[in-house]
């Protein structure tokens, strides 16, 4: 601000000599490299480097051979690009005695994530719809419990769920884990759908009632088709959330069903053998790839999912 003031005075005198008595005209003169801009973009640039650096180092490391890593600098680009670490991470990295690589974890994660998303969104959207449009007695009580439950540390509910799943004969199976994800995804998704359906004009709902549509008729014929964006937002929340989960995976599944994150951790932090940092980083990237792709592809919708999570009530 003060710098523009100083330029003003210079500008006035320069202009005054050219066009007498007319004085300043048009836009305030601005320099692209004002002190303010240098500070602003400088700060942003430095912080951006801090944020990008880990991703960069991950990629660079995963493309180097071990000798180069031992000798060189982690920030240096690879002299000789090799994809061997990626191949090894995918197909033959070891966790303990098992040397199948990450691929098994990847497919496990896929088999966990897809049904979990479908189930949790199906349940939560119907919940949200019932809460928004068919308020029944006690609905708000259960909804409040659900929202409060979102703040309770998972650790408190960890063991009771083990017992429930064991009684159902699902403990250790993929189905059990899918159920757990549906349960713990319910608060945020129900909130998301309830808020969205509440914002749909009530007249629309009433008109459908007058036309004779019932609970499911209105849900499938009216609400569902007009709320596709919010389903996409819910999917983004769930893909990243479930793919990135570690705790539930490690608690509720047997080792052969471990999701990718658990397997990744076991590969990298395994104490046996020589540490192969390039393979570790390749494995780390591969694991992070799915949520990253979702993030970069979804853009504004990802942000909307965050905002939805933040607006309570």
């Amino acid at each position, binding site marked *: *601000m003060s710098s523009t*003031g100083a330029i*003003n005075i210079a*500008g*006035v005198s320069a202009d005054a000599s050219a066009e007498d008595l*007319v*004085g*300043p*005209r*048009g*836009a*305030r*003169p601005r320099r692209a490299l004002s002190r303010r801009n240098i500070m602003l973009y400088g700060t942003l640039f430095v912080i951006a480097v801090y944020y990008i650096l880990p991703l960069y180092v991950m990629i660079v490391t995963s493309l180097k051979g071990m000798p180069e890593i031992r000798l060189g600098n982690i920030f240096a680009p690879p002299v000789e690009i090799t994809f061997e670490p990626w191949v090894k991470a995918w197909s033959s990295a070891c966790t303990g005695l098992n040397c199948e690589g990450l691929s098994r974890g990847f497919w496990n994660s896929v088999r966990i994530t897809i049904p979990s998303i479908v189930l949790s969104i199906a349940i939560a959207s119907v919940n949200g719809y019932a809460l928004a449009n068919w308020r029944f007695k006690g609905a708000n009580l259960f909804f409040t419990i659900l929202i409060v439950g979102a703040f309770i540390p998972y650790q408190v509910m960890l063991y009771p769920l083990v017992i429930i799943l064991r009684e159902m004969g699902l403990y250790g199976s993929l189905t059990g884990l899918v159920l757990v994800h549906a349960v713990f995804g319910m608060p945020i998704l129900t909130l998301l759908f309830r808020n969205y359906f509440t914002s749909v004009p009530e007249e629309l709902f009433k008109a459908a009632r007058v036309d004779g549509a019932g609970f499911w008729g209105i849900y499938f014929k009216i609400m569902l088709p007009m709320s596709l964006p919010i389903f996409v937002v819910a999917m983004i929340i769930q893909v990243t959330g479930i793919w990135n989960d570690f705790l539930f995976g490690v608690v509720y599944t047997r080792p052969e069903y471990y999701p990718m994150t658990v397997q990744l951790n076991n590969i990298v932090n395994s104490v046996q053998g020589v540490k192969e940092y390039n393979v570790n980083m390749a494995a780390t990237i591969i694991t992070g790839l799915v949520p990253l792709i979702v993030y970069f592809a979804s853009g504004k919708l990802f942000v909307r999912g965050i905002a939805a999570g933040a607006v309570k009530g």
Partner: protein
Amino acid sequence: MANVSVKDLDLNFGEIKVLQNLNIDVGEGEFLVLLGSSGCGKSTLLNCIAGLLDISDGQIFIGDRNVTWEQPKDRGIGMVFQSYALYPQMTVEGNLAFGLKNARMSKDEIKKRIARAAEFLQIEPLLGRKPAQLSGGQRQRVAIGRALVRDVDVFLFDEPLSNLDAKLRAELRVEIKRLHQQLENTTMIYVTHDQIEAMTLADRIAIMRGGSIQQLAAPNTIYNKPVNKYVAGFIGSPSINFIDGEVRFNSDPVFVAGDTKIDVARYEFTGNGPKPGPVTFGIRPEHIFLERGGEDEPFTAEVEVDVVEPMGADTLVWSHMGGNELRFRVDGQTSLSKGDRVTIGFDPARASIFDAETELRL
């Protein structure tokens, strides 16, 4: 010394020309209203005058001082916003004092100015409250107070009454008028889309459309002699009747639309006088009268009543003439009904005639 001049002002956002070649001179103590529908650039122009927007070309003078490059705070202006824009976490007193404190004014002077403004606006009992505890009208009074304590010569109002309900709006409108009368040398520029506000408050009105000024004149002139069809249609409620037809000459100029012939010999044509050709003939509903046998208006015709809208004080009658709709006002107590045939009359000299193509006044 508080006249405001805008010279050759242009404002572009990238490729889009928002304001084009605007020239306005507002005299000291004048009340100018910028009137137009939303998106016409009236608020944008006000923001340019305030220095909140950087203009692309042209100059702005306030009190004969070139302020084109000055910061808003250095322009000697106070501004009142539609959303009040009070600082919500501060008391009323804090709101009034914040700018002054920041300018390092002495405590005594701040106190004196706040006391004076509070008395002026009758907000003394509110000084200790927060904005959230005030009604809309009170908030807007505080917002005016914030401009008042700055002790400036130019007040800018950006749709200050648009967030209020109709009754409060009428009350505060009078108060703003009173304020202007009491602050004799203070220039006021006032943006609104409400033509009643414009007509009641303004010394002069500038009607804006698409980033340029259509007409800048006293309210009466704008009402009686609109320069083009847009201004004629914009001002007045219920709005003016337009009848499409053409001007013909026998010996005198005559407006012809279908079977209807209106003698316009007494109409004051602009410029070189009447020319034959297609025109739009405009006559305001309140200038049309029901004939009661006396037949004293220069033009009369028999029309059929289509719709009757009683509004209490008067009644609006919808009819048709020469293939166009025709609305006119009659006494609130008349008992007309659909299908009635009545004789109406008006003075063509009070009408406005526009070129059908350029839409300019003839």
